[in-house]
């Protein structure tokens, strides 16, 4: 049944581009919404639809299903905001088609059991996102897309070189074959090199700290719905989920590798948070905050214990939700004020109450305040670090959490609280297309946060 997750978006693109363009233009957006809801349903309540003729090697465990759920939710809100923000019907139609391709690519990344197919689907999503970033043909967007293409091409080359060298011992590209071969073969320096460059490539795709050059540019220059999608799921699926999958199902946790992950994670957390403090552009601050939050996922993974991995995946889910909500808020503010510079805003909460409240809740979830969802995942990661003996990193994580709170409070103070400026006296709340998705995401944050103690037993990890 998992093959439908890839085939259905592909078939949708083909169906939408059949001759009846006039009619399809109108229904495309509703079709996309229905598809994302269907994906949520299928993830939560799996139905066994047998594929009679095509046997694809796909598999899903609980990690993949959590990521599939994130993808569907973020896609849903992206489509809602795109419907509101992209006025021209033709453009909207192309946008929806690209979203379908992105969806097929990301679903593929989460479901594959083969290292080369993983690369193929990563590249599909990346190509679709280059086009999405430069969708409006702004100068900055083109620049960001070019940077992304260059770094991404470097990452592709590294990834494929890693795959080729690993094939020297495994002779196959399936996860299982590689895992068996890695057990048998002596740890030669060549194989260590191969694994190192493969993981570095995933770091580039995920925008972790030493390799983050493209990420703030891409997030801030992309059109608003695209930054929601990029920050929420695209980079997380390509880089971070890819890393989790490779670590869990292929390489396994090794001493030096764990140290490297913990170090890179801690570096990303601290430097990302400090860089976020210094930003005055709304979206750039969120982008640096994204780097910092991804660091938490990586140190959770770096513990190598079941609890740590659970925390990492849970934080990935939470991050997708609250970061999408914050990017939607930034889109709402930008659509009303026409600027992203935080020094030009003040006291917007009185004029835009829904945006204000949803952004406060999302920020608090990101900073890890109880009882919101972000609190639980950060708590689990820190407990996992403490239990497995990496106490220094646990302390770093707690301290960085304070910095997170600091920059989000600074954001709130500059944008939403305080006295309203004269020239923004007569602005109104953003349209329903931007507030409704934010409200949905906030409801998920609160709901998961409150229900988590009860859900803990239901989720068999």
């Amino acid at each position, binding site marked *: 049944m998992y093959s439908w997750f890839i085939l259905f978006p592909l078939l949708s693109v083909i169906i939408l581009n059949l001759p009846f363009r006039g009619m399809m233009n109108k229904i495309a957006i509703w079709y996309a919404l229905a598809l994302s809801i269907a994906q949520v349903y299928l993830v939560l309540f799996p139905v066994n639809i047998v594929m009679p003729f095509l046997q694809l090697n796909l598999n899903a465990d609980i990690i993949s299903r959590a990521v599939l759920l994130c993808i569907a939710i973020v896609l849903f809100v992206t489509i809602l905001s795109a419907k509101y923000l992209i006025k021209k019907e033709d453009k909207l139609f192309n946008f929806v088609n690209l979203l379908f391709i992105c969806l097929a690519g990301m679903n593929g990344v989460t479901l594959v059991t083969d290292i*080369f197919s993983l690369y*193929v689907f990563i*590249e599909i999503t990346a*190509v679709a996102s*280059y*086009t999405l970033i*430069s969708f409006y*043909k702004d*100068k*900055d967007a*083109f*620049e*960001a*897309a*070019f*940077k992304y*293409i*260059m770094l991404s*091409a*470097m990452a*592709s*080359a590294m990834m*494929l*070189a890693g*795959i*080729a*060298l690993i*094939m*020297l011992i495994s*002779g*196959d*590209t399936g996860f299982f074959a590689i895992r068996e071969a890695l057990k048998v073969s002596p740890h030669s320096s060549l194989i260590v090199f191969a694994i190192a460059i493969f993981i570095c490539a995933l770091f580039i795709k995920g925008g972790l700290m030493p390799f*983050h*050059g*493209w990420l*703030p*540019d891409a997030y*801030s*220059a992309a059109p608003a719905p695209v930054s929601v999608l990029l920050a929420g799921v695209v980079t997380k699926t390509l880089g971070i989920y890819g890393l989790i999958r490779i670590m869990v199902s292929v390489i396994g946790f090794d001493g030096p590798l764990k140290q490297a992950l913990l170090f890179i994670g801690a570096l990303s957390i601290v430097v990302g948070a400090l860089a976020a403090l210094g930003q005055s552009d709304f979206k750039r601050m969120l982008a640096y905050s994204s780097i910092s939050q991804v660091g938490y996922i990586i140190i959770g993974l770096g513990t190598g214990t079941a609890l740590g991995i659970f925390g990492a995946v849970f934080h990935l889910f939470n991050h997708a939700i609250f970061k999408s909500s914050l990017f939607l808020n930034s889109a709402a503010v930008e659509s009303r004020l026409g600027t992203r510079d935080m020094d030009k805003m003040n006291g917007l909460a009185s004029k835009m109450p829904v945006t204000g409240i949803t952004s406060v809740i999302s920020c608090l979830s990101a900073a890890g305040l109880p009882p919101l969802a972000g609190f639980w995942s950060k708590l689990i990661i820190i407990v996992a670090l403490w239990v497995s003996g990496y106490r220094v990193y646990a302390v770093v994580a707690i301290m960085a959490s304070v910095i997170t709170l600091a920059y989000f409070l600074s954001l709130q103070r500059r944008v939403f609280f305080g006295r309203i400026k004269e020239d923004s006296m007569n602005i109104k709340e953003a349209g329903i297309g931007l507030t409704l998705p934010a409200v949905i995401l906030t409801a998920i944050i609160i709901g998961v946060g409150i229900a988590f103690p009860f859900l803990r037993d239901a989720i068999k990890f």
Partner: protein
Amino acid sequence: MSAESLQLFCTFGIFIFMLAAIGVYCMLATYNLIRALIGVELLLKAVTLLIVAVGYITKHNALTQAMVITFIVIEVVVMTVAIGVVLGIRSHTNSLDARDIRNLKG
């Protein structure tokens, strides 16, 4: 690994590494956007050759050929989109110089 195939692999490995180094150097040193893309092409060519060489040594030619075909298709699509982006940059700045587009800073 037998001595003969080891020697073959080392020879190819060294030359592939040199080719990749030329590509990366070109990407980093040039300011011209199209030249940077040519550097990317050289880098990807090096990787293609590496995959084929590995297939020859492990006698998995069929699998590696299938991989290379998929990879070439991907490479062409990436290049097409990249050239579209370069033309877009040129339509804004009227030049292909990377120094003209340094608005954003990492």
